[in-house]
């Protein structure tokens, strides 16, 4: 048992240390402050600021949309709004969506994109694919925390004359806050790190995107591109990018712990 624990912890430490050791040594300030002017892939200067911005431009709106949609769904799944047969049907659909590999969402968005006559890729459809990916993740987290809201609390809100929507908006929302926060951050972390869905939909670019129909670079996709390059010096840049991505994801994980702790202060049990 200790051996298996050691394998699990060891593999995590191995992965983090490989990325940190290789990434920190090849990372430079220049890489973080410049866009990749085409020569980035050829071994000379340039940076990946455009990929960082691109990743944020994809993940932030996607998380925002997914957040609104997920909170609505999770609130609606309460038994005041909907009979339990429908809610279990919706839950099964969401479970299936949770299990669908992200590349399938990528293919879905790509197919729609081709049908609309767009080629190469665009930010908009990247956001679309990521939103689909994040909806089940956030919904599950919010739903779990709404399920444990004590019934007496809701009933006392109703007995004071508040409507279903007001109760959801003011009472249930506050009780479910840790789940909502955790869901948003989980979804964001998953969205910013997911390569498969945006690989197919956003294309690649060396500059900042200027419109929602532009192609853009993103952190996971340029890691993939860099790792596939033959030269060793270029490959090392992949570790620098991965280091930045890992830093973002780790800080999200820490933020999640902090904010869930903070927001669970106001919960009435």
């Amino acid at each position, binding site marked *: 048992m200790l051996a298996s624990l050691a394998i699990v*912890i060891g593999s995590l430490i191995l992965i983090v240390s490989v990325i940190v050791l290789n990434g920190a040594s090849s990372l430079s300030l220049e890489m973080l402050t410049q866009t990749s002017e085409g020569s980035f892939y050829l071994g000379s200067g340039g940076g990946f600021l455009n990929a960082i911005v691109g990743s944020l431009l994809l993940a932030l709106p996607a998380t925002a949309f997914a957040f609104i949609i997920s909170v*609505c769904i999770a609130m609606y799944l309460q038994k005041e709004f909907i009979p339990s047969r429908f809610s279990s049907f919706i839950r099964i659909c969401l479970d299936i969506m949770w299990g669908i590999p992200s590349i399938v969402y990528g293919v879905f968005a790509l*197919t729609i994109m081709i049908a609309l006559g767009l080629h190469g890729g665009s930010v908009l459809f990247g956001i679309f694919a990521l939103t689909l990916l994040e909806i089940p993740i956030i919904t599950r987290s919010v739903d779990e925390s709404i399920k444990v809201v004590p019934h007496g609390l809701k009933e006392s809100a109703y007995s004071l004359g508040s409507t*279903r929507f007001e109760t959801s908006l003011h009472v249930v929302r506050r009780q479910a806050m840790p789940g909502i926060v955790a869901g948003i951050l989980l979804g964001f972390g998953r969205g910013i790190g997911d390569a498969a869905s945006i690989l*197919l939909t956003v294309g690649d670019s060396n500059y900042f995107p*200027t419109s929602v129909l532009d192609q853009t670079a993103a952190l996971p996709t340029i890691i993939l591109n860099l790792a596939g390059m033959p030269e060793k010096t270029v490959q090392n840049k992949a570790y620098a990018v991965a280091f930045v991505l890992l830093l973002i994801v780790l800080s999200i994980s820490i933020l999640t712990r902090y904010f869930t702790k903070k927001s669970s202060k106001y919960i009435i049990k």
Partner: protein
Amino acid sequence: MHINKASAVVKKKSFLSALLILILSILSLFVLKDIALALILLFVAVALIAVNFLIISRRLFDVLGTRFMLIVVLFVLALFFLLIIVLLNGSGILLEHQSIGDLLFSSAWKPFSNHFGLFAVIIDTLIVTAISMVIAVPISLLTAVYITEYAPTRLRNMIRPFIDVLAGVPSVVFGLCALLVFIPVVRDYIAPFFGVVTSSGFCLFTASLILSIMVFPIIISLCVESFSSIPLALKEASLSVGATKWETVKKVIFRASGPGVLSAIFLGFGRAFGETIAVSMVIGNQELIPRTLFGSGQTLASLIANNYTEVASIPLLASALIFVALILFVVVLIFNICGFLVLRRASKRWKY
């Protein structure tokens, strides 16, 4: 009185945010020169203001809010079914060209001569997923048991964040690590150990290794959850009749949390089955069944990732990739339904 005040605050807030969005819209029109974005923002602002004037009674507010949530739910359900329709429709083009039996049971993947056989890829996918589960399941189960039953509280509180972090690491980072660490190890030590000297390291076995690491956190965290929901009295009863701790784990905990463990394994399987990027970085990307585990292969998901760039030049290829996505979707669907049924049966049998 109080409610009127509260709704006044809400009105003021939403009015201010509408103004803000309006300003953003004007900015995006004149600074970014992006008409589409400006229109979207304008629409949102107008909608906010409209809603603001509409809220005359709390009753109307309640009805509108509920309707809005219903619309969102229906929208997502519609998207879900649209996904199915798009996948079915897209693969229909290929099915007119080639029979489904030929697609699934011929192993010649020749996109340039418009022949698509997926047999080799399917077999590779099954092999990779099976090996990764064989590695991951025992290790994760033992770790979960250790965390819930044996570890002192302090150690437990230290391990949990580690598992959460492992769950959040992006797949492309796993792939990168496998490229640097696992490939040389497999090429230089593991493959020769099993008598294969010609392996490049880009092989099914490396892919299974990295997949099993990716599956650890899913199985562990779900198992820990279901282990710790077992009532204490059940464990104490077992211990009080003289069972050792390990016997209790084996006969009481595993059995009582059987459904939870099963669904954890199902979920882990789903993740391993559909993982794309990490696999495509290390598997070697050749559509054939290798003679040993240390030869290159291709899985269904990595097939899509490696071929999508040529979609524009070969029309049928797009349809073929959609068909592959459809297979992935159907397998996930079947697994979910199986998991649901097994869970229902199991929770009836393993009742406590």
